[in-house]
């Protein structure tokens, strides 16, 4: 993605998700913040970065520990009008994933574009 197109991705809030689905509650609590902001009418952009890209692997169900799976939450994003889903291209490569194997349609952004992305949103929350 070029700098020009990154700058077109404007919104009120950029939520950066940097944690994998299981192991901690970061991902779930980050998604909650995104959903609440969207429910209050804010335009939300989601960026899955680093380990966070693994949240988009299909089949994130409740594990043996009884944690809530995050897949149902991700499936609700569209209903909340959160349609700008970005993934860090380098992280996809590092985990051996390609965008077609993810559970939702996403746009890949490279690390170099992330600063411009943050600058085009008045509020950035990182989880």
């Amino acid at each position, binding site marked *: 993605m070029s700098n020009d197109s990154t700058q077109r991705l404007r919104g*009120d*809030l950029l939520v950066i998700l940097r944690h994998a689905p299981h192991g901690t*509650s970061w991902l779930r609590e980050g998604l*909650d*913040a995104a959903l*609440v*902001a969207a429910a209050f009418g*804010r335009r939300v952009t989601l960026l899955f970065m680093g380990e966070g890209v693994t949240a988009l692997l299909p089949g994130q169900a409740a594990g043996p520990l009884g944690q809530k799976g995050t897949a149902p939450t991700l499936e609700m994003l569209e209903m909340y009008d959160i349609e700008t889903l970005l993934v860090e291209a380098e992280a996809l490569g590092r985990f051996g994933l390609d965008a077609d194997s993810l559970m939702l349609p996403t746009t890949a952004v490279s690390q170099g574009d992330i600063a411009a992305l943050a600058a085009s949103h008045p509020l950035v*929350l990182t989880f």
Partner: protein
Amino acid sequence: MRYGILLMGAPYSSQASHSALRFAEAVVARGHRLEGIFFYHDGVQNAARLAAPPQDEPHLVDAWAELAREYDVPLQVCIAAALRRGLLDEREAARHGKQGHSVEAPFELTGLGQLVDLGLRCDRLITFGP
């Protein structure tokens, strides 16, 4: 400038809460306005009324309360994150049939919408996490 703070680290487990408190004190000392402090994720533990740290360590819960009273800073605690971690004010304790409560004023249980409002209202929202 108008500052806000988002605190997501548990007190005494990581440096996040100590750093956030020192930053908050510096903000008001410089004459800036501190619009609010939002406690989320493990940061909600900062609101634990029953915290009893050793006397030779800073008492973070009391320090937040003092800051709030002296400079009129709202201390907003995410209710969903708090309830599942055992942090309930009197009203929530009664609602859930629990004896005793673990959160009291000036901390207030509130929704995540307040975090978004705070972030968009301030010139700077500074996040402290583990």
